[in-house]
């Protein structure tokens, strides 16, 4: 009861909407199970009339599922919360996303939302280096991974599963100092890119491999629980995705879907993200413990238009290097 009251107070400006938003909402997301559960629970605290369910999977698994359901004439998802904007750009180009130009985006910077109002970044998820605290070496740069002592010791997420991993590879390609040359050398280090970021975490924390390439929040969160891992922001910079949220054009419940998006972008939704251990998209919200101040995080330069143009050829090359 107290939690409901608190939520209502925090969301006073939105309270008018709360009366009208109801029905069922289905979310397809790449968030970890527990996070998706809590995100939806917080949303329902504000909009108790809405019932929710979700499907979790890697971005590379959710997308084909959506396409298969559309092809079968049985779309089930209302809202998508996936890792990267490249995926959203693809769906937007096929007119699969609902346009909401007047969405209330709260304090989220304009750079993180689609100017046409079809998808909105909800947080910043960076990809950096992971290290088991028992491991002998201390990698500080991406290029350190090319050393002979790292051979067979690096775990990485598969770009076919993780949207963040795909963007990471596309970002590396765009760095003059790294580029394809770096990836070709890295592929020779016996990297077994398999599964998503969660499996990289398990593999490195369980001592199967000493080091990894991973998104920030998993190790930072597990480190706080005492897990023998640490996250390293490499000197060259991290790659970043915005975990955008979008509404499918065929949604049967646009009211609840819009309320969900507005909720994620609101100060309350952003505070929830920070509580879950994510770097919020809204710079006014304090980052969770374990993160450096946002202005100290160096993000590698990334040109989304160039990535979109060359992604198909690049993915084929990634498949050849790291396995599809």
């Amino acid at each position, binding site marked *: 009861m107290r939690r409901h009251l608190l939520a209502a107070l925090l969301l006073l400006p939105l309270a008018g909407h709360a009366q009208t938003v109801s029905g069922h909402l*289905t979310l*397809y997301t790449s968030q*970890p*199970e*527990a996070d998706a*559960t809590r995100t939806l629970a917080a949303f329902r605290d504000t909009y108790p009339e809405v019932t929710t*369910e*979700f*499907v*979790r*999977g*890697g971005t*590379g*698994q959710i*997308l*084909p*599922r959506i*396409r*298969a*359901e559309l092809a*079968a*004439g*049985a779309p*089930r*998802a209302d809202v998508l919360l996936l890792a990267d904007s490249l995926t959203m750009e693809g769906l937007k180009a096929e007119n699969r996303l609902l346009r909401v130009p007047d969405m209330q985006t709260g304090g989220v910077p304009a750079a993180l939302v689609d100017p046409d109002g079809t998808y909105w970044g909800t947080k910043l998820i960076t990809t950096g280096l992971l290290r*088991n605290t*028992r*491991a002998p070496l201390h990698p500080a740069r991406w290029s350190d991974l090319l050393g002979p002592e790292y051979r*067979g*010791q690096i775990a990485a997420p598969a770009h*076919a599963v993780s949207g963040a991993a795909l963007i990471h590879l596309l970002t590396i390609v765009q760095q003059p100092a790294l580029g394809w040359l770096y990836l070709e050398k890295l592929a020779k280090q016996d990297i*077994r890119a*398999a*599964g*998503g*970021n*969660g*499996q*990289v*975490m*398990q*593999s*490195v*924390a*369980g*001592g*199967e*491999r*000493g080091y990894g390439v991973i998104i920030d929040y*998993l190790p930072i969160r*597990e480190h706080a*629980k*005492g*897990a*023998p*891992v640490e996250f390293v922001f490499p000197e060259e910079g991290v790659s970043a995705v915005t975990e955008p949220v979008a509404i499918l054009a065929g949604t049967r419940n646009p009211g609840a879907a819009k309320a969900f998006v507005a909720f994620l972008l609101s100060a309350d939704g952003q505070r929830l993200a920070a509580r879950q251990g994510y770097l919020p998209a809204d710079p006014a919200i304090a980052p969770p413990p374990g993160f450096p101040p946002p202005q100290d995080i160096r993000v590698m330069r990334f040109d989304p238009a160039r990535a979109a143009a060359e992604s198909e050829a690049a993915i084929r090359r990634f498949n050849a290097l790291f*396995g*599809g």
Partner: protein
Amino acid sequence: MRHTAGASHRPYDHAVRLAERQRLPEGWTPVLLAGAWALAFGAWPLLRLAAEAAGRWSLLWDMAGDAAIWRAAGRSLAGAAAAAVLATLLGAAAALSLLLRMRFRRLLALLFVLPMLVPPQIMALAWIQAAAPSGPFRLWLGVPGPFGQGNWLYGPHGIVLLLAVQTAPLVFLTTLGLVRRLPGELIEAARGLGARPVRALAAAALPLLAPGIMAGAALAFVAAIGNFGTAALIGLPARWPMLTVLIWQRLTGPGSNALAEAAVLSLLLAMLAATGLALAALARRRGTPVPAGRAFAPVGAPRLAALAGTLMGLYGIAVLALPLAALVAAAFAPAAGLPPVVTFRTAAALATALWQQPAVGEAVRNSLLLALGAGVVLAAAAVPLARLSALPAARPVALWIALPQALPGTVTAVGAILVALMLPFGAGAALYGGTGLILLAYLSRFALLATRPVAASLALLDPRIADAAAGLGAGPWARLGRVTIPLTLPAIAAGGTLVALSAVNELTVSALLYAAGSRTLGVVVFGLNEGGETQLAAAVSLLSLAITAGLLAAATWLGRRLPPGAVPWRV
């Protein structure tokens, strides 16, 4: 008295009807319904699958040039064959050991069969945890493995080993089925000729058991090639996808032709499995008929029996007890890479965490509903299906009841999708992605499980009872409802429970058919593990095992009066 009145002045007709009633004590209607069932649930999905692939020459051409497909097919063949060989050695050794008089005979037999009853995905998760070098289990025991050496289970050898342990019970049970019919006189005769006990067994019993061992080996091959849970949990991180995993990847991955490709691959898988089935049939036919005689009595060879018994016990500890302990350790680890904290408080916290995951509640509800639905429907259909199966003339139709069970579940699932998409009036769209489609697929896949115990029980039923009922004026439906069903009720209940037991932990079919709201326990364990949420995956597995144990106890209890073999693991 209607029928006798008509028949009294036509003795020939009367004889025909009597003979018919001996074979079909409830008349033709249930059998015709069962035939329609077999065609709708068995033949339609499989034929639809074949039709999807037929004539698509350009697709077939493209796929023939896809090296990944041939690699996966080669892995499936080689992996399943290796697993079958190992399973045969293990299963035959265990079955032969039981020819000796030993203590804890039944317990050891159950211990050997249990790996077949633990869902493959849970077994694989448990083994992975037991092998993880710095996983919670090894840290708990204080014997962490070498750092940075990977998990030794991740590789073809790990898949083969685990598949062998999971399929060895099939060899064990088919062999034991023959042991039960081994005439006691045979061993006595051999011993009378001066052979020592063990030699008497080897010389007299082994030739008679060989066809059972061979048939078991073929069944182990079929089960191994159709396995998805183990192949995925170990094969994905090891980057060694077999055909079942490749089909799942193609169906859930990008690609405009995903469904057609999955259909072609399923047919390929079905053909590979069919070679195993043909071998099993051949082995059964080639077998020397076992002469009837006195019941076989285990042979006394105390030292050897003690050794065999100890080995079987150690085997059970190695393949079952240690991995399950590792699963508990994984569930109780506070974070990845930390030793478990097993206290009352952490247990309570774990229970709360499970309770708070809506996915878990959803999965328990879905899996229990699916198990109940499939169990009840198939139990209700079991008597007609068993009557149909017993009819020699209906063999081509009855085959379709057995085939979905024998072929890999992947084949059933892809067939179910194709059938659902062709249903009229939007029924397909309504079914697609819902629990309903999974239920329909289960009805196809598990029909034989419900039919088999009932068929065994019907074979023992004296047809004169139905005759007597007919003489008292009971029509076909009354004979079904008042005579046959009450008399075979234990078998019907045991069959239904077997179905429920298989359905509640099923993954192969539901991994391809689930959507939001229709996830099953198997899918949730698989998904949590894939997402790297190992602690939760292990916890849900423990919950799942508790449900399985309950159903197992129920099936054993219901099957206690049935002929041996009706409930597969009861020896």
